[in-house]
């Protein structure tokens, strides 16, 4: 057995799940459970930060690796969890009877995601993948409206199961080619066509999670029909975990196998373009964010397609900053949709007068997604593009920058609704204390990384080195 202390961040989140469950079973109020979940999520963030430089193996050798890479992504996952929990105080979009238990599923899913980014053995990896997915499947079903919940749940579970099956099939092919399930040993094996097919299939399953075109079809429907906080969680923390698993798998066949590189490049360009073009015509804010997620999955693929340390580092950097950036947008959805319905672009009218804080949060989120300074999105885009040019992908940067301009159009339209259109309903919007804290936290993170990207970049770079071994 290894050093069990290294498992403390995951254990904290797992303890959070059990604590929330206990409070719920003992008949505690929803509020008590929620406060416990906020405390435990904050403790999880703290523990992840404390152990961010940890290195070693908590369990049997070779199956579970704690290194700069896994620990940094765990910080991203726990921050996503904390932010989501902070806006889940009332959770009006969840079915009333499930509100007390809801945080438990988030915690279980987060535990799974944290284990996922550390898993270095194919079966451990698969189990962690399922563990992280089941929590999300349940969260998606719990919408106040039975019909919506059933729709989101059915779509998510069916798509998710199909993607899991792909991954499992890929895993079996990798095993057939390499006759081992340890990633470190697989990487030593000669690259055979069977192995490349196996890795591609395994990656396909994860591309579903990240919503990369053409595996993105579930995202808009699930985002639209699941409760707001569930969508927030799916849109933030689960993306970080998906990036982690892709990076672990893609280097199994050496640095940049031609077939893999081509697939990455095609998916990258298609994802950006389809996501952005489809987002232009959306009226429902959550659907818009879903398509923008598809586009951002494409941006992240720019870094991955480089198959270099700088590329992986920039993808990690972007994946991490994406959490607070997109959270700022989701926060507004959670508050505006407190009646359980989805806010549309039109419902933003006059937001600057009804709640200046919400309007500003939305502004920061939209500028962040569009990559406008001084938000973190600008630094993220710059680093992705730098990595691509270093890998001689000049044309890819042109395509990426063109897409960023297209995306600016619909982000500006959202800002226009919030800041220009006079309000239909003059009543001020009440924002709870926890939500205010979450909003300022999100804004502070986005602006801090935007003005001073240095520290996070250093961490992302050492995380990338842990994988590429340079």
């Amino acid at each position, binding site marked *: 057995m290894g050093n069990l202390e290294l498992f403390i961040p995951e254990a904290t989140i797992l303890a959070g799940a059990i604590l929330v469950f206990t409070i719920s079973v003992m008949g505690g109020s929803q509020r008590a459970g929620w406060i416990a979940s906020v405390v435990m999520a904050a403790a999880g963030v703290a523990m992840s930060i404390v152990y961010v430089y940890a290195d070693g193996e908590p369990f049997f050798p070779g199956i579970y690796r704690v290194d700069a890479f896994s620990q940094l992504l765990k910080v991203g996952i726990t921050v996503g969890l904390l932010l989501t929990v902070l806006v889940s105080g009332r959770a009006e979009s969840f079915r009333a009877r499930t509100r007390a238990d809801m945080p438990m599923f988030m915690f279980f899913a987060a535990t799974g995601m944290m284990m996922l980014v550390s898993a270095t053995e194919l079966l451990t990896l698969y189990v962690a993948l399922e563990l992280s997915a089941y929590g999300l499947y349940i969260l998606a079903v719990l919408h106040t409206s039975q019909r919506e919940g059933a729709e989101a749940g059915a779509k998510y579970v069916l798509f998710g199961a199909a993607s899991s099956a792909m991954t499992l099939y890929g895993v079996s092919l990798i095993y057939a080619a390499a006759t081992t399930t340890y990633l470190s040993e697989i990487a030593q094996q000669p690259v055979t066509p069977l192995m490349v097919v196996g890795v591609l299939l395994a990656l396909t399953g994860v591309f579903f999670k990240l919503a990369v075109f053409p595996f993105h079809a579930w995202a808009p429907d699930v985002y639209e029909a699941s409760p707001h906080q569930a969508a927030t969680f799916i849109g933030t923390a689960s993306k970080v975990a998906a990036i982690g698993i892709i990076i672990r798998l893609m280097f199994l066949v050496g640095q940049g196998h031609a077939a893999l590189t081509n697939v990455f490049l095609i998916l990258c360009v298609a994802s950006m373009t389809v996501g952005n073009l489809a987002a232009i015509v959306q009226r429902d804010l959550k659907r818009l964010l879903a398509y923008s997620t598809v586009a951002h999955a494409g941006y992240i693929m720019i870094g991955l397609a480089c198959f270099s340390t700088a590329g992986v580092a920039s993808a990690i950097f972007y994946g991490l900053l994406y959490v607070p950036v997109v959270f700022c947008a989701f926060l507004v959805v959670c508050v505006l949709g407190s009646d359980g319905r989805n806010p549309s672009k039109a419902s933003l009218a006059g937001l600057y007068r009804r709640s200046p804080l919400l309007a500003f949060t939305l502004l920061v989120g939209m500028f962040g997604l569009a990559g406008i300074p001084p938000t973190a999105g600008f630094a993220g885009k*710059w680093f992705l593009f730098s990595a691509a040019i270093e890998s001689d992908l000049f044309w890819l940067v042109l395509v990426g920058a063109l897409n960023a301009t297209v995306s600016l*159009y619909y982000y500006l339209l959202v800002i226009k609704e919030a*800041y*220009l259109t006079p309000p239909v309903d003059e009543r001020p919007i009440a924002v709870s204390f926890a939500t205010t804290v979450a909003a300022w936290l999100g804004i502070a993170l986005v602006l801090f990384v935007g003005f001073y990207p240095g520290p996070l970049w250093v961490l992302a770079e050492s995380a990338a080195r842990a994988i590429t071994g340079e």
Partner: protein
Amino acid sequence: MTDFPILTVTLLCPAAALLLTLLIPGRMDRLIKGVNALCALASLVLAIVIWIRFDRSVGGFQMTHDIPWVPSLGIHYTVAVDGAAVVLTLLTSLVFFTGVLSMWTLKERVKEYFAFMAALVFGVFGVFLSLDLFAFFFFYELAVLPMYPLIAIWGSTRKEYSAMKLTLFLMAGSVLLFPGLIALFVRSGGDTWNIIALAESGAFSRQFQIFVYPFIYIGFGVLAGMFPFHGWSPTGHVAAPTAVSMLHAGVLMKLGAFGIFRVAITCLPEGAAYWAPTFATLATIGIVYGAFVAMRQTDFKYIIGFSSVSHMGIVLLGLNVYAASNGASDIARDGAIFQMFAHGIMTALFFSAVGFIYDQTHDRDIRHFGGLASQVPVASSMFIVAALCGMGVPGFASFWAELLVFIAALQTYPVLGVCAIVGLIFTAAYVMRVLSTAMFGPRNPDWDHLVDVGAWLVTPRVILVAVLLLFGFYPTLILDMIRSVGAGGGP
């Protein structure tokens, strides 16, 4: 020299204005205006101090302040000024200060207005002062984006359309800049973003320069109102409120020209020389075309908007002549930078005068006016001064600037030079037309009730007129400063 980081403090003036504006409650709008005026005044004073402290005999880059920002990527926060940056810093602070004063009567959403405006000026200062390419582009994009809300909320005449058009045009320019600028960094070895270090690295082959130069030139050129990518500019002017028009034409368009000068020509001299004939031709077309279109316009702001395209064409022509000479033609460079300054002050004055009239009449059609010179003599005289300056009449700053550019152009590209001078005739024609129709001509009794510029609001305009005359009669003052660019080495 003391170690007081005067450039950083100057850069922080608009940032302080932004932060204080956000902290002050929105209902205390007089306090917000006061704070902004104070910060703008502080930046103006600092800009003058920079001008005085800058050692012209040494030249090169001075007052450098450098902090490592992202060391592992070679990104630094580096601010330094050369003669060109000193001149343009003064221009920015002048337009900032007079812009705040000319929006003194604003009543609608005052807090947000000044917050966006301070963010814009923060970006503009950042561009003029930065020597690090990452910071340069960071501030460049920061300066562009506030234009969207500023025009879309407080503007007039198809404001949402114009605001979106402007933003997307300028961001499309950034599409070309992203790969172009990053390619410079990667090709030079990937250790530094410092513009001077990049220029001196000698790592750019002729082929590479010829390939990358148009990306950077056109990318920045869009913001400089380069023909044929100028379409956003006149519509943006027409829609924008007074102070935003002043900033837009006064300094924002200079960012583009400055980017070409500071980044494209400095880092890629061979590429610049290769492309100079093409881009000089486009610039000349811009001069003639802008003036030609302005002749047919009836809206005050469209006329000035197209005249800006024409005048920025002179700047670009000068820069291209400078590029064609491989940095030998000092006259062209001096003229181009002088023209940036003179045009900035002149258009600020133009828009300030037109904005004053529009605020009262809500009309900008020159055919609806007549005899304004007798109705509002002070405001009209401001407009007339700006108009004379636009024509390049001796005694105003533009005269020297245009003269220098044309002399240099005639030496290098005689045909283009002659065409550009012909463009000046059109300029004289449209200026005369406006003056004779709206300022003089038969008096329109509808506007007899107009109130002229008061003692308080006249201050900013008087400053601008004084600056135009000062540098018109004493051009050596500014030319000495700009000429020091050629002297000395790096920072």
